[in-house]
C-alpha cells in the first residue's frame, strides 16, 4: 500500500516539478490525440454529411404505379413511405400531370407538393417566388416564353375531359367548353429555370390541380430523395415491392450509381489522409517523448547509484509517461470533438453526435504511443553504468 503510494507520489512530483517540460510533452500528446479523435469522427461522419449534400442532385428513388394497380393513389404512396426511416427521407414530391389549354394551346400542368419539391429538387432556380397560396403557379421558362407571361401576370386554364380525349379538336366553341370544362384563373408567382424539360411545364399545388380537374387522390409518379447508401436503397426497393403491391419503386440509377462512386472516393480520401496524418503525428509524439526521457539520463543514473533496480526505474518512468499519455488523450479527445464539431458546423451547417467510444480509444492510443516511445530511451539509460552517466559520459 505504502509502496504504491510512494510510486504515485514520485510520478506526480516529477510531473509537477518539471512543469514546463511536462507541459510541452503533454501539449504534443494532446495535439496528437486531438487529431486522432477529430479525423476519425470526421471520417465516420463524411458519408452521412456528404450524402446529404449529394441529395442536391435530386430524387434518387421514384414510385410509379405497379402493373396491376395502374394508378398510384396518395394512400398507397403514403403506405409505401411508411417503410422508409423518417430521418433518412429528405423529401418526397408526388407529381400529377394533366394537359390543359391556355390561350387555346395545350400545356402540361404538374400538380405537386410545393414544399416537397423544394427538398427533392433543390437545384431548381426560381425567378420570383415559390407558390404559397391557392391559385398561384410556377411557370417553366420555355412555357413562359411561349405564352409570353411574366411574374405577376394572370393565366386562364381550361380543362375538359372530353377535349383532352380528342386532342385534335380543341374545345373551340362555347358549347363544347360549357360541357364539363372547368376554367380557372391563376397568378404567375415565379418562373422556373432548370435546364431540363421541367421548363416546359406549369407547376401548381395538388389541391389546385384537383380543383381544376375535378378529381383528387391520384398521382402519376412520386419522386423521393432518400439519404441512404446503395445497399439500403436496394433493401427499401425490395421491401416496398413486397409489402405494397400497388407501388413499384425504382431507383434513379444515374443518381444512385454516381453518388456511390463519388462518395466512396471521398471517403477513401479522408481515410488515407487520416492514416497519413495519424502516422506522422504518432512519430512526432514519440520523438518528443524520447527527447523528454533522454534528457533525464542523469536522474536515472543517480537512482541506479542509490540502488534502485532496473525494473523499478523502468516501471516508474513508464508510469509517468503513461499517465501523461492518459491526460493528453483525455484532453485531446475533447478538443478533437470540438474540432470535428467546428468542421461540421462550418462545412455542412449541421452538428455531429459525440462518440463516447472514441474517448477510451484516444486515451489508450495515446498511452500506448507514449509508453512505447519512452521504453526505448529508458531501456538504453538503465543499461548504462551509473558512474558514466553521472560523470556526464
Amino acid at each position, binding site marked *: 500500500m505504502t509502496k504504491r503510494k510512494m510510486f504515485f507520489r514520485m510520478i506526480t512530483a516529477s510531473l509537477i516539478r518539471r512543469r514546463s517540460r511536462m507541459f510541452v510533452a503533454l501539449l504534443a500528446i494532446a495535439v496528437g490525440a486531438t487529431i486522432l479523435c477529430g479525423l476519425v469522427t470526421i471520417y465516420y461522419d463524411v458519408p452521412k454529411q456528404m450524402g446529404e449534400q449529394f441529395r442536391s442532385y*435530386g430524387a434518387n428513388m421514384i414510385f410509379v404505379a405497379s402493373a396491376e394497380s395502374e394508378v398510384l393513389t396518395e394512400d398507397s404512396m403514403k403506405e409505401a413511405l411508411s417503410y422508409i426511416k423518417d430521418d433518412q427521407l429528405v423529401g418526397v414530391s408526388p407529381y400529377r400531370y394533366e394537359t390543359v389549354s391556355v390561350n387555346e394551346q395545350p400545356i402540361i400542368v404538374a400538380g405537386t407538393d410545393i414544399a416537397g419539391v423544394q427538398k427533392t429538387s433543390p437545384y431548381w432556380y426560381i425567378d420570383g417566388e415559390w407558390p404559397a397560396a391557392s391559385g398561384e403557379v410556377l411557370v417553366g421558362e420555355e412555357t413562359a416564353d411561349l405564352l409570353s407571361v411574366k411574374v405577376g401576370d394572370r393565366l386562364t386554364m381550361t380543362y375538359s375531359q372530353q377535349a383532352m380525349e380528342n386532342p385534335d379538336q380543341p374545345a373551340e366553341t362555347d358549347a363544347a367548353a360549357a360541357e364539363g370544362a372547368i376554367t380557372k384563373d391563376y397568378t404567375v408567382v415565379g418562373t422556373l429555370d*432548370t435546364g431540363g424539360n421541367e421548363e416546359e411545364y406549369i407547376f401548381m399545388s395538388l389541391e389546385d390541380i384537383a380543383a381544376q380537374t375535378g378529381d383528387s387522390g391520384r398521382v402519376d409518379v412520386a419522386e423521393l430523395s432518400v439519404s441512404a447508401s446503395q445497399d439500403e436503397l436496394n433493401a427499401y426497393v425490395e421491401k416496398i415491392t413486397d409489402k405494397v403491391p400497388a407501388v413499384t419503386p425504382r431507383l434513379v440509377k444515374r443518381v444512385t450509381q454516381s453518388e456511390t462512386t463519388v462518395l466512396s472516393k471521398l471517403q477513401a480520401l479522408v481515410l488515407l489522409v487520416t492514416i497519413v496524418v495519424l502516422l506522422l503525428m504518432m512519430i*512526432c509524439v514519440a520523438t518528443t517523448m524520447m527527447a523528454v526521457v533522454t534528457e533525464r539520463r542523469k536522474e536515472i543514473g543517480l537512482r541506479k547509484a542509490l540502488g534502485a533496480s532496473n525494473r523499478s526505474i523502468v516501471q516508474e518512468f513508464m508510469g509517468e509517461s503513461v499517465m501523461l499519455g492518459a491526460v493528453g488523450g483525455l484532453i485531446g479527445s475533447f478538443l478533437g470533438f470540438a474540432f470535428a464539431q467546428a468542421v461540421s458546423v462550418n462545412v455542412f451547417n449541421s452538428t455531429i453526435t459525440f462518440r463516447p467510444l472514441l474517448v477510451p480509444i484516444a486515451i489508450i492510443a495515446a498511452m500506448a504511443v507514449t509508453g512505447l516511445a519512452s521504453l526505448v530511451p529508458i531501456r538504453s539509460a538503465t543499461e548504462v553504468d551509473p558512474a558514466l552517466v553521472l560523470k556526464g559520459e
Partner: protein
Amino acid sequence: MFFRMVKGALFRQKGKMVMIAFTILLGASLATSMLNIMLDVGDKVNQELKTYGANITVVPKQNSVIEDIYELEGDDADDIKSAYLQEDELGKIKTIFWAFNIVDFAPFIDTTVDLNGSDVKLVGSWYNHHLSLPTGEELDAGLTSLRSWWSITDGEWMDEQASEDGVMVGAILAKEQGLKVGDKVTVSTRHASKELTVEGIYDSGDDADEQLYTTLDIAQELSDSDGLISSIEVSALTTPDNELARKAAKDPNSLSIEDYETWYCTAYASSICYQIQEVITGAVASPVRQVAESEGAIMEKTRLLMILITILSLVGSALGISNLVTASVMERSKELGLLKAIGAKDGAITALVLTEIMITALVGGAIGYFVGYGFAQIIGHTVFDAAINMKPMVIPIVAILILVVTFFGSIPAIRTLLRMKPAEVLHGR
C-alpha cells in the same frame, strides 16, 4: 571559427540533430502532402463528378418550341431543317476559350423507327469517337463516359471504329422483344430500312431503357438528315456559380466591361455556354441545373473540408516541431552557459544556435518535401487513379512555415537560457 563551431555542433551531436531533422522532415512532409492534396482536390472531385453526365446541353434555337408545342409529326417535322445543328461544326466546341475544360461531348439525333411492328425511339450518337483536333489534341468522346451509370447487362459497349451496323438495346425493350446480343433486327422509317446487329444490352434506370442506341451515321441515314444533329451534350469542368455568374447568365450585356471580362475568362457554366453559342450557329446552350448546381455545392464542401483538415495537420506539425526544438535548446543549457562564462556575447550565442537549428531544419524540410510528394502521389493514385498535380507555390509555403516554426520554437528557449547566470547554469542550479 563560427562555421567551425556550427559544424562541430552538427557533427558531434549527430543523434540529436538527426532527431530534430527527422521531426521537421515529418512536419514538412505532412504540410507538403496536405497542401498539395487540398489545392488539387477541387479538380479531382470535379473529374469524379463527371460520372453524373453532361452539365451543358446544346439544342437548336426554337427546336423544342416547334416540335413540342405544335406536335409536328412525320413529313412536316423532317422538313424543318433549321431546327438542327450542323455535325461539321462539332469540332468547334474544342476551340472556345475554355476548350481545355471541356472533357467530353457527344451529338445526338433521334428518330422514331418501326421495330417488329412497334414504334421505338432510335438515338444516334458517339460512343468512343476519336477526334483529332486542329490544335493537335487527341480526344475520345462519347457515351461510354457520358453515360457511365449505364450497366451493360449483356454484350459490350459499341465500338464505333469497328462496327458498321451495330445497335445497343435498352433492357426493358430487349425483354419485351426478346432480343439477345448477336440478333439481327430490322428497323425502318419512311426514308430507309436497315438491318442492325445487337451488340449490347444496357440497363440505364431511365427512359433510355426503352430505346435503341446506334451510331450517328445510321440514325442520320434512317431519318434522312445527313450531317445534321438535334442536340449536343457537353461535359465541362466548371467553377461554382456566384452572384456575377447568375447576373451574367440572365443577360451578359448588362455587365460592365470589367465584369464581362472576369465572367468570360472564368469557367462558369454560363460563360462556357455563352462561348459555345458563339461558335455553333443557331444554338442555345444551357447548363443542366441538376448537375451544375450540385457539382458546385459538393466541390465547395469538399474543398472546405480539406482546408480545415489541412489547417489542423499544419498546426499539429508546427507544434510538434517547435516542441522538439525547444526541448533540444533547453538541453544545451550547460554548453551555452560555458560559452557565456568564457565571454561570448548574447548575440553571438543566439546566432550560433539559430544557425545550427536552421541548417538542420533546411535539410529536414528539403527531404520532407520529397517524402510529402510521395505521400500525396500515393493518396492520389489510390483514391483518384491519377497523379496529384504538385503546385510550385507549396514549396515557399512549406519553407516559410518550417523556418518560422523553428525560429519561434527556439527563440523563447534561447532567451530563457541567456537570462540565466552562467555560474548557476554550470553549477546545475
